[in-house]
């Protein structure tokens, strides 16, 4: 008997679908994109079956489109994510993310003695140092220390 296919959440008419997010990173992506503050509908799923990755997460943000520098920020936690833009239920653009060369405000510097942690209102600013294997570290513009991937903490 043919298995009945069901949509996990309904399709959006207009907006952006962020697919193939690692299952445990969905909430971080929501935060990075500031989706917890928007007034338009946002649907998300975690631990959804994925042929490619086993499980995955996704986000569907209705009536919302993102600037490339914003979507690239999510590459910090979800390098496998794909961004699908929808207009009138049709896919108009599909793209993958890539880690940007610089990151501002969204990540904390791991150094407790950095000016960004000691003073109020000094936004963090990092240069992204990438290696050939796709790993990266964030070089703090102020204290010049490197925050490694395992120490990433979002503001």
């Amino acid at each position, binding site marked *: 008997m043919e298995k009945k296919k069901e949509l996990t959440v309904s399709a959006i008419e207009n907006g952006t679908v962020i697919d193939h997010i690692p299952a445990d990173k969905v909430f971080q992506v929501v935060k990075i994109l500031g989706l917890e503050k928007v007034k338009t509908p946002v649907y998300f799923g975690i631990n959804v079956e994925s042929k490619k990755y086993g499980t995955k997460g996704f986000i569907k943000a209705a009536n919302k489109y993102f600037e490339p520098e914003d979507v690239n920020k999510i590459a910090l936690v979800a390098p496998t994510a794909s961004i699908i833009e929808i207009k009138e239920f049709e896919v108009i653009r599909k793209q993958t993310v890539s880690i940007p060369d610089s990151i501002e405000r969204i990540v904390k510097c791991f*150094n407790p003695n*950095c*000016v960004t942690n000691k*003073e109020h209102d000094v936004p963090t600013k990092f240069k992204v140092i990438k290696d050939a294997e796709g790993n990266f570290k964030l070089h703090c*513009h*102020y204290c010049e*220390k*490197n925050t490694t991937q395992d120490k990433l903490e979002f503001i």
Partner: protein
Amino acid sequence: MSVSLKNRSLISISDYTPEEICHVLDIAEDFEKNPHQNLLNGRIIASLFFEPSTRTRLSFETAIQLLGGNVIGFSSTAGTSIQKGESLADTITMVASYADLIVMRNPIEGSARFASEVSKVPVINAGDGANQHPTQCMLDLYSIRKTQGTLENLEITLVGDLKYGRTVHSLVEAMCNFNAKFNLVSPVELKLPSVVKQHIKDRNLEYHQYTELEDAIPHSDIIYMTRIQRERFPDPEEYEKVKNSYVLRNAMLANSKPNCRVLHPLPRVNEIHVDVDANPKAYYFQQAQNGVYARQALIASILGLK
């Protein structure tokens, strides 16, 4: 093309190109010959020391006075608005409206870079925690060039705390521009951090790691001793284990090269025995004196007076 450092803050030694560094050293040489030059002519320099300092603060203030300038500022935060909770941004904005240049030491890492972004006048970093101390680096380079006649192709032995010692990190970074060869002498716990070592590797320069100081002495042009700094150790037990790792004694210099000189950013505790002081190869006190000329050169260049 002529070099101009007018209005250029100095936060990290890498802010200046090798040409710009050499330009500052040339000016410092001129100040050594003729230290009293009334170039500032009453201009006001703010000296903001958020933590205690002896040499750096005194040599800056000496440099300013030799240049005919006036100093305002503080040597600790006691009694200032900072203790009332004023932000660094507000303090700097206010002081920048009083002074032509700000010299700042602050224990918070990155504070100097931030201050230079807030301030409308240039900022010289006189040390921001364990991060950078570029004017020390400038006087170290001046001392090396003066004693060796060049900065090129020298063999530099760095001894002691190579992990936390900010002067070592800046010196390595700067000397990488001049084809140096490095001998790194430290206890295992205090090895040069990989991020600093990467500068050496990026330039394909030669370096060797030693645990015994005697092995590196005979071929060194410069022996740069450092104090193992108690205040940089999160764990006091770790400090106790390594505090007396290296002590340079006069007899150990017997096989050193004739041009070899011993440098130390000071203060020393016991890592250079006093019996070295009388050896003509001991250069650390002249090195501290050179700090005045290097700082005169920086102030004059940044204010566009040289």
